[in-house]
C-alpha cells in the first residue's frame, strides 16, 4: 500500500466507519446473547462516548501535526530567503525544537561552504596579484639593463658589469617563478600529497644534501640526531622541500661558524622534528608573520630570497595533518619544530 498518497481524511473516514461498524456489531451481539435492552443501551452509550473522545483526540492531533508542519515549512522558507528568525521554542525538549535545530545546522553548513568558496576565490585572486607584483621588479630591471646594453658607447668593463647584473636578475626571476609555480600548484589543489609510510631518515638526508655546500662555505657545524630507521607516513618529495626551506633559512641567517642541529623525537600522537640554529633569532611578535606569503624581515632585505619558503613549508606540513611551531630568543637562535602525525588518518 502506498502510504504517501493516502490522505489523512480518507484514513479517518475509513477508520471511523470501521469503529462504528464494530461497535454496532458488538452491541448487536450483546443483544442477541442477553436479550437485555438496558445492556444494549449502556453499550451504545459507552461506544458513543469513546467515539466522541476518539474524534477529539484526532482533531487535536491533526491540529498539532499541522502546526508542526507549518513551523518546519516556515523555517525552510526563512532559510530560502536567507532571513533566519529566532524561535521561542528552540530550547525545548520537543521533537520540533530538535528538527529545527538540525535544519539550522544544515543551513549553517551551507552558508559556511558558500563563504569558503568565496574565500578560496579571494585567495586565488590575491595569489595572482602577488605573482604579478613580485615579477614586475626583476622584469623592469631586465628591460632597463637590456636598453643600456644596446647603447653602443659602453666600455667592455661596463658591459660585463651589466651582464652580471642581468644574470642576477634572471636568477631572481627564475627562483620566483619556480617558487610561485609550486605555491599555486599547492594552493589550487593541483597537487595531492602522497603519504606513504617511509623512513624519515632518508628524507632528512635528502633535505640536508641541499644545504651542505652552502653550510660548508660558511664553516657551519651541522648535527643530526635521528634514528636510522624512523618510519612515518609522509610525502617524501614535498616534506624534503619543507625541511629544506627551514634549513636553507637557517644557513642563510646564521653567521659563519654557527651551528645547526636537527633532531627527531617520537611522541604519542606526533613525531617532532626540531631544526635549531644559532642565528639572530626572531622577535616573538613576528612568529605569525614569518609564515605569510612574501613576508620578509626588514633587517634581511639585502639577503637573497622572496619570502615564500616558510609559507610553503607550513602549507606542506598542514596538508599532511601536521603543524609547525617556532620558538626563538633574540641573539641565541631559533628552533622550528615540525610535527607530523604518527598515524595516517586523512
Amino acid at each position: 500500500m502506498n502510504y504517501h498518497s493516502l490522505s489523512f481524511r480518507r484514513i479517518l473516514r475509513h477508520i471511523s466507519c470501521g469503529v462504528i461498524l464494530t461497535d454496532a456489531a458488538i452491541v448487536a451481539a450483546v443483544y442477541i446473547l442477553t436479550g437485555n435492552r438496558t445492556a444494549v443501551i449502556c453499550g451504545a452509550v459507552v461506544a458513543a462516548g469513546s467515539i466522541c473522545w476518539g474524534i477529539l483526540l484526532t482533531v487535536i492531533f491533526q491540529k498539532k501535526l499541522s502546526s508542526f508542519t507549518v513551523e518546519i515549512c516556515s523555517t525552510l522558507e526563512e532559510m530560502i530567503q536567507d532571513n533566519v528568525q529566532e524561535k521561542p521554542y528552540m530550547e525545548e525538549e520537543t521533537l520540533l525544537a530538535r528538527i529545527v535545530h538540525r535544519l539550522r545546522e544544515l543551513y549553517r553548513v551551507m552558508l559556511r561552504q558558500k563563504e569558503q568558496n568565496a574565500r578560496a576565490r579571494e585567495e586565488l585572486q590575491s595569489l595572482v596579484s602577488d605573482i604579478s607584483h613580485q615579477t614586475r621588479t626583476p622584469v623592469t630591471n631586465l628591460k632597463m639593463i637590456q636598453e643600456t646594453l644596446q647603447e653602443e658607447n659602453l666600455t667592455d668593463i661596463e658591459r660585463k658589469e651589466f651582464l652580471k647584473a642581468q644574470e642576477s636578475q634572471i636568477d631572481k626571476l627564475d627562483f620566483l617563478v619556480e617558487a610561485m609555480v609550486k605555491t599555486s600548484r599547492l594552493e589550487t589543489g593541483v597537487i595531492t600529497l602522497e603519504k606513504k609510510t617511509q623512513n624519515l631518515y632518508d628524507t632528512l638526508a635528502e633535505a640536508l644534501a641541499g644545504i651542505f655546500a652552502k653550510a660548508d662555505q660558511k664553516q657551519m657545524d651541522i648535527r643530526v640526531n635521528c634514528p636510522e630507521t624512523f618510519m612515518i607516513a609522509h610525502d617524501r618529495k614535498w616534506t624534503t622541500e619543507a625541511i629544506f626551506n627551514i634549513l636553507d633559512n637557517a644557513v642563510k641567517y646564521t653567521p659563519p661558524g654557527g651551528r645547526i642541529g636537527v633532531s627527531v623525537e617520537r611522541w604519542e600522537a606526533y613525531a617532532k622534528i626540531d631544526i635549531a640554529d644559532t642565528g639572530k633569532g626572531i622577535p616573538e611578535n613576528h612568529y605569525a608573520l614569518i609564515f605569510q606569503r612574501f613576508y620578509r624581515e626588514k633587517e634581511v632585505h639585502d639577503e637573497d630570497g622572496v619570502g615564500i619558503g616558510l609559507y610553503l613549508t607550513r602549507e606542506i606540513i598542514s596538508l599532511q595533518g601536521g603543524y609547525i611551531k617556532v620558538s626563538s630568543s633574540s641573539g641565541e637562535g631559533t628552533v622550528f619544530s615540525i610535527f607530523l602525525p604518527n598515524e595516517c588518518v586523512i
Partner: protein
Amino acid sequence: MNILQVTELKKYYGEEPNITKALDGVDLCVEEGEFAAIVGTSGSGKSTLLNMMGGLDVPTSGSVTVRGKELSKMNDEQLTVFRRRNIGFIFQNYNLIPILNAYENIIMPVELDGNRVNVRYVEEVAGLLSLTDRLEYMPGNLSGGQQQRVAIARALVSKPAIVLADEPTGNLDSKTSADVIGLLKRTCYELNQTIVMITHNDQIAQMADRIIRIEDGRITA
C-alpha cells in the same frame, strides 16, 4: 561571522567597599572556525570569563551572545538544553564517567539529546584524535592524554557552535600537552569548529590562531 559575542561583561563579587571585580568590562568577539586562547595569570578572571561564555555563571551586567542568542535571557531549563546543543566543554580533569568506556563517554551528549548516534561521524572524530583503537577502553585504563582526547571527542561529537576548554592541558606534561593541543587544533580545523581555550602556558597558547590576554578582569591585548 561572529559566533560568540561578549559585550561590556562585568562580574563583581561582594559589595562596596569590599568589592572584587572579577571581570571589569570585557568586550570580545570570536569568529566561526577560530581557535582563540585566553591567557592570564591565576586570579585574572579568565575562568570567570569562560564560565560566563558557557552560561555556567550569571554576569553582574553585560551580555554574552552565542549564535545570536543572549544567554542571560534564558531560564535555567532553556539554558541546560541550549548548552547541550550548542556548547562543548573540555575540563582540566577530563570529567569522564568512569563506568562507561571511551565510546560510551563520547556518545553521551548525543544520546542525552535523544538523537540517534551518527557512528560514522564518531569514528571520524575518533580517527582525527588517534583514538580509533582505544574506544573500547575504560577511562581508568587510558593515559591522561588519551583521557583528555576522549573528552575532546565528547565535546565535539554533538557539533556544538563553540567548544570551551578550561586549562585542557593543566594535568598533562609538556609533551603530551603539545600532542593533545595539536590534535585538538587539527580536529577543529577539519571540522571547522570554534574553540576558546584558557591556558596559562605560553607555549600552548602559541598554537592558537589568536591570543587574548586578560589581566585584572580586563583584556589587555
